[in-house]
């Protein structure tokens, strides 16, 4: 998404501050899983708006189609048949896609300047023209979202329709949802809306209903209302406490500065050793010894 009119708050592989003069409202998409009927209109709208068309797959005995996110399918409905003690068989349908983390692991891992950016409004976007195709974003993501295209080796994922949001429209999936399961607005408004809905659900007997806005990644700009918020894993493996993996943090926040300092120290250490101690020459004594030895041979 180049040529956008949104302010950038964070930029991959960039060590200086981003412009911060203008203050923008943080936005969020709220997906109320308890209202979702699994119609896949959001999947269709996503493909239509973003000019994507995935290959026609095969049925694997579930409603999941396509089976997984791809470079052509940025959002996928996941259908889980779950038996809970309170309510017996339940069909939990979750619209999967990028969560637009406040602290995005993909952006932390990305080595290409400006290939991943986080807008001031919270949307995390991939700029494919800067993407080098290394796939580090896949390692960085705690939600297994980015997909590398087999054709062009670029990384793709949900943009939260940053192009639409930039001109004051809601994301395509929000516009098309027939049950009002998906809402879009300021993050604060979405949290309030979620709180009202959670109260309703609790009154209806879902005593563990709650908002999914995981703190481990600084909160997300895509949030879920879950009727079993105590067990997010029921929803096709939604992680209970997602964080950027410690290996990724060690790699990017610890190894990177330490290694740079270590390598610089080795190079400078050599230079200063040479300057201060001088070269290690062959001694004149030994040269003379060797001369005598050779003369002795003659």
């Amino acid at each position, binding site marked *: 998404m180049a040529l956008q009119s949104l302010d950038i708050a964070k930029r991959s592989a960039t060590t200086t501050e981003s412009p911060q003069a203008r203050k923008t409202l943080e936005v969020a998409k709220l997906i109320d899983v308890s209202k979702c009927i699994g119609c896949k209109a959001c999947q269709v709208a996503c493909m239509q708006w973003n000019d994507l068309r995935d290959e026609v797959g095969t049925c694997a005995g579930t409603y999941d189609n396509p089976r997984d996110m791809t470079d052509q399918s940025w959002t996928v409905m996941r259908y889980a048949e779950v038996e809970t003690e309170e309510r017996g068989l339940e069909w939990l349908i979750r619209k999967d896609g990028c969560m637009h983390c406040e602290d995005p692991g993909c952006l932390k891992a990305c080595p290409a300047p400006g290939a991943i950016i986080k807008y001031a409004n919270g949307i995390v976007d991939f700029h494919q023209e800067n993407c080098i195709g290394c796939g580090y974003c896949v390692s960085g993501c705690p939600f297994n979202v980015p997909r590398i295209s087999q054709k062009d080796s670029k990384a793709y994922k949900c943009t939260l329709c940053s192009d639409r949001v930039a001109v004051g429209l809601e994301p395509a999936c929000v516009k098309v949802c027939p049950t009002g399961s998906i809402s879009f607005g300021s993050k604060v408004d979405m949290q309030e809306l979620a709180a009202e809905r959670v109260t309703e659900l609790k009154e209806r007997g879902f005593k563990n209903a709650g908002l999914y806005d995981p703190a481990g990644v600084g909160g997300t700009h895509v949030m879920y209302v879950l009727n079993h918020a105590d067990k997010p894993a029921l929803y096709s493996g939604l992680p209970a406490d997602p964080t950027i993996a410690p290996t990724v943090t060690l790699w990017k926040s610890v190894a990177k500065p330490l290694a740079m300092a270590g390598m610089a120290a080795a190079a400078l250490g050599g230079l200063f050793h040479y300057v201060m101690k001088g070269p290690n020459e*062959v001694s004149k004594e030994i040269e003379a010894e060797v001369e005598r030895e050779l003369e002795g041979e003659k």
Partner: protein
Amino acid sequence: MIRDPHDLQRYTASERANHWVTGICFILLALSGLSLFHPALFPLTMLFGGGTWTRILHPFIGVVMMLFFVVMFFRFQGLNRMREADWEWVKRAKEMVNGDDHNMPEMGKYNGGQKLLFWFLGVAMLVLFVSGIVIWRAYFSASFPIGVVRLGALLHAVFAALMIAAIIVHVYAAIWVRGTIRAMLYGTVTRAWAKQHHRAWYKQMTGK
């Protein structure tokens, strides 16, 4: 073709070529790897035709380096077994670095430091090759669990940094000890050089 007939042959032409193919690969890998390691060094990708080309080329250069390194490893591994005197040398290395090598034990073709570097490079190359395969997104990463890929990226970065530091020491040692670089350029060293730095090897080569 100026040659002192008394000079000692340290490396054959084929050993030298082997070393330099490995060395060139190392330099290309270090530059391309560093360019993707720290944002400040990203402009180095321009040496390889941009970021995407750097990402494409780096692993292939790595495979070439591994092939040539393996040949070099088996050529030299027999000469790099650590012995009693080598450990003694390592213990006294500090004295030598400070400018006094009078108490250094007699060394064969390689000293204790060179031998330790040799084994470290062997380990580093193995870790870099295996972790490099794991994080080679275009062909292999999808076959490994995400936790393994993350660990691979971490190990690749750590061992690459250690190896670059080790090679800086390797290159500096060759510059510091005057008369050394020619051994790897055209194969010979002077007798005095050999007697000074590798006396046991000197005795073995000259019978003195």
